[in-house]
C-alpha cells in the first residue's frame, strides 16, 4: 500500500480548520454534562425514600424517631419541601444559573463557599497523586521494559500487583507502618508536604500500576517501531532512544487514562481523606450523602463534573501537545 491521501497536498497545513467548532462542541457537551449531573443529583436526592424534613430534624437533635406533621411543618416551609417537585427543580436550576449552589441544610453555609473551602485540599491531593503516579510510571517503565526477560517480568509483575492493591488497604498499611510504626511521617500534623506523602502514595501507587500496564504495552509497541531502529542507526544509546523517542509514544495511553484517573482519584480521595484525617470534599460528600444534604451533594457533583470537564479538556490539549498529528486532523 503506498503513501496516503496526504501525499497530494503536503503543503497545506490543515491547522485552524475546525478548531472553533470543536471548542464549541466541547463547551456544549460540557454544559450538557453539568446540566445532566445537576438534574440526576436533584432527582436522586429528592426522590430517595425517606422524608427529608424528618431527616433534618432528627439530625439536628441526634434522634432517630418518626416525627409528626406539626414538628415538620416549619422545616418543610423553610426549605420549600411542600412545593411540587418540578417547582423545587426549577428553583434549583434557577439558583444554579445565577451561580448559587444553595445553602446547606445542615451547616447553614452557602454551598459554593463550603466547596471553595474544601476543594483545594482535594485537588492538591488528587493532582499530587496523579503526579506521583506519572513519575512512578515513567521511571518504572523506562527502567524495566524490555531490559531483560527477568527485569521485564519483575517490572510488569510489580505493576500488576500495584494495580490490584485496594487503596483503602494500602492506605491503612502505609499509615500503620510509616506513620504509626516507623514515625517517618506525621500521623495528622506536620507540614503540608509531609502530610501529603502517604495519602498521595496511597492513591498514586495503584494508579501507577494501571497506567504502567498501559504505558508498558505502548512502550513495547513503540520499541518495535522502525523509527526506533532508525534512531539507533544514528548512534543513539538505548537510554536515549527510550527517553527521547519511545517515551513520548508510550505516554499517550497514560494521558488518555489521566482523565479517567481523576474520577477514580476523587473516589479514592473519599476513602483516603477518612483514613488520613484530611479535609476535603470527599469527607464532606460522605457526610452530606449520609444526611441527604441535597444542596451540598448537588454542589459537589456539579463541581466534580466541572473539574472532570476541565481536566478532560486539558487531557485533550496535552494529548495534542504530545501527539501533534491530532491537532491537524
Amino acid at each position, binding site marked *: 500500500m503506498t503513501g496516503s491521501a496526504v501525499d497530494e497536498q503536503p503543503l497545506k497545513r490543515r491547522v485552524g480548520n475546525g478548531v472553533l467548532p470543536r471548542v464549541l462542541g466541547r463547551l456544549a*457537551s460540557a454544559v450538557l454534562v453539568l446540566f445532566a449531573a445537576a438534574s440526576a443529583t436533584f432527582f436522586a436526592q429528592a426522590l430517595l425514600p425517606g422524608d427529608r424534613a424528618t431527616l433534618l430534624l432528627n439530625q439536628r437533635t441526634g434522634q432517630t424517631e418518626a416525627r409528626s406533621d406539626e414538628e415538620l411543618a416549619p422545616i418543610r416551609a423553610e426549605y420549600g419541601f411542600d412545593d411540587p417537585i418540578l417547582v423545587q427543580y426549577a428553583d434549583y436550576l434557577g439558583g444554579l444559573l445565577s451561580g448559587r449552589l444553595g445553602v446547606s441544610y445542615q451547616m447553614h453555609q452557602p454551598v459554593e463557599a463550603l466547596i471553595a473551602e474544601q476543594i483545594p485540599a482535594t485537588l492538591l491531593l488528587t493532582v499530587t497523586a496523579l503526579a506521583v503516579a506519572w513519575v512512578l510510571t515513567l521511571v518504572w517503565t523506562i527502567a524495566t521494559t524490555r531490559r531483560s526477560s527477568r527485569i521485564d517480568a519483575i517490572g510488569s509483575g510489580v505493576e500488576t500487583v500495584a494495580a490490584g492493591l485496594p487503596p483503602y488497604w494500602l492506605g491503612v498499611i502505609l499509615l500503620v507502618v510509616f506513620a*504509626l510504626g516507623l514515625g517517618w511521617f506525621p500521623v495528622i500534623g506536620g507540614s503540608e508536604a509531609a502530610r501529603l506523602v502517604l495519602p498521595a502514595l496511597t492513591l498514586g501507587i495503584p494508579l501507577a500500576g494501571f497506567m504502567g500496564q498501559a504505558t508498558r504495552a505502548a512502550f513495547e509497541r513503540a520499541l518495535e517501531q522502525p523509527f526506533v531502529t532508525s534512531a539507533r542507526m544514528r548512534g543513539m544509546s538505548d537510554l536515549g532512544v527510550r527517553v527521547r523517542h519511545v517515551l513520548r509514544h508510550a505516554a499517550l495511553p497514560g494521558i488518555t487514562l489521566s482523565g*479517567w484517573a481523576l474520577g477514580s482519584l476523587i473516589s479514592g480521595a473519599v476513602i483516603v481523606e477518612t483514613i488520613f484525617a484530611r479535609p476535603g470534599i470527599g469527607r464532606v460528600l460522605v457526610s452530606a450523602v449520609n444526611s441527604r444534604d441535597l444542596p451540598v451533594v448537588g454542589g459537589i457533583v456539579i463541581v466534580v463534573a466541572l473539574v472532570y*470537564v476541565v481536566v478532560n479538556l486539558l487531557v485533550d490539549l496535552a494529548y495534542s501537545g504530545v501527539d501533534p498529528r491530532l491537532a491537524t486532523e
Partner: protein
Amino acid sequence: MTATAAPPLSRTRRTPSPTLLLSLLVVAFFLAAAIIPGVLATHDPLQFDLVAALQSPSLSHLAGTDEAGRDLYSRIIFGTRESLSIGLGATALSLAIALVLGVAAGLGGRVVDAIVSRSLDVLFAFPMLLVALLFVAAFGPSPATLVLAVGIGTAPGYARMIRGQVLAVCTSPYVEAAHAVGHSSWRVLRQHIVPNAVRPLVAVATLSIGQSIVWASGLSFLGLGVAPPSPEWGALLDAGRAYMTHAWWLEVLPGLAIVLLALAVTTIGRHLQQRLEGHRA
C-alpha cells in the same frame, strides 16, 4: 509490507508461565472456597469463641481470630462466595449495560451514537463512589446494592470500549468482505460484528472481576457494604482496621485475599487478552 521480515530484535512471546499456572491455582482455590466453603474451612465462620479473641495465626487458627474469637481463615473462606459473586455480578451487569450501550452507539448511526456518547460523558463525570453512595443512600447497604453500584459505576468505561470495538469491526475489511459476498446485514452482524466486538470482552471481563471485587470491598470498607456478620472481605477489612496495631492479621490477611484473587484473575485476563490479540495480530 514487503520482504523485510523484522528480525527478532525482541524476544518472542512468553510461553505458558509458572505465573499463569499459579494464578489458575489461586482462582481454583477461591472458586472451591466459594462453592464448597465447608470443606475448606476449619471452623464455623460465625461461631464466637470469647476466650479465643484476637489470637495470632497458629495451627489451630490458620489466620488468627478476630475480636470475637471467630476464626479468620474460615471467615475469609466463607466470605469468598459473597465477594466473588459481587465481583461476578457487578461485572456481568456492567458488561451487559456496556454491551447494550456500546453496540447501540456503534451501530445505531450518528444520532444514537451522539446520544449514547453524551450520556456516557455524563456518567463519566460521576465518580464511581458517588454513584455508589447514591445507591446505598437509596436502597440501603446490601450485596445487591453493591452489584448495582459497582456495575453501573464501571459500565461507561466498557461501553466506550465496546463502541470503539464495534466501530473498528464495522469498518474492518472482513466485514466489508462479508457484505461484498452478499450476506444480509443481519447475518454480518450476527456472524462477524457482534462476536468480534465482544471477543476482547472475555479478557476485559476477567480483568474487571478483580476490579469489581476491589471496589465492592471498598464500599464495605466505608461501612456501606454487606451487612455483618457476613464475612465479605471488605467488611472484614473494615472491621480489622481498628485492630490493626494489635492484630495485624485482621487487616493484612483479608487484604491479601483480595489482592491475591484480583491478581490471579488479572493475570489470567491478560493472558487471555494476549492470546486473543495474538490471533488478531
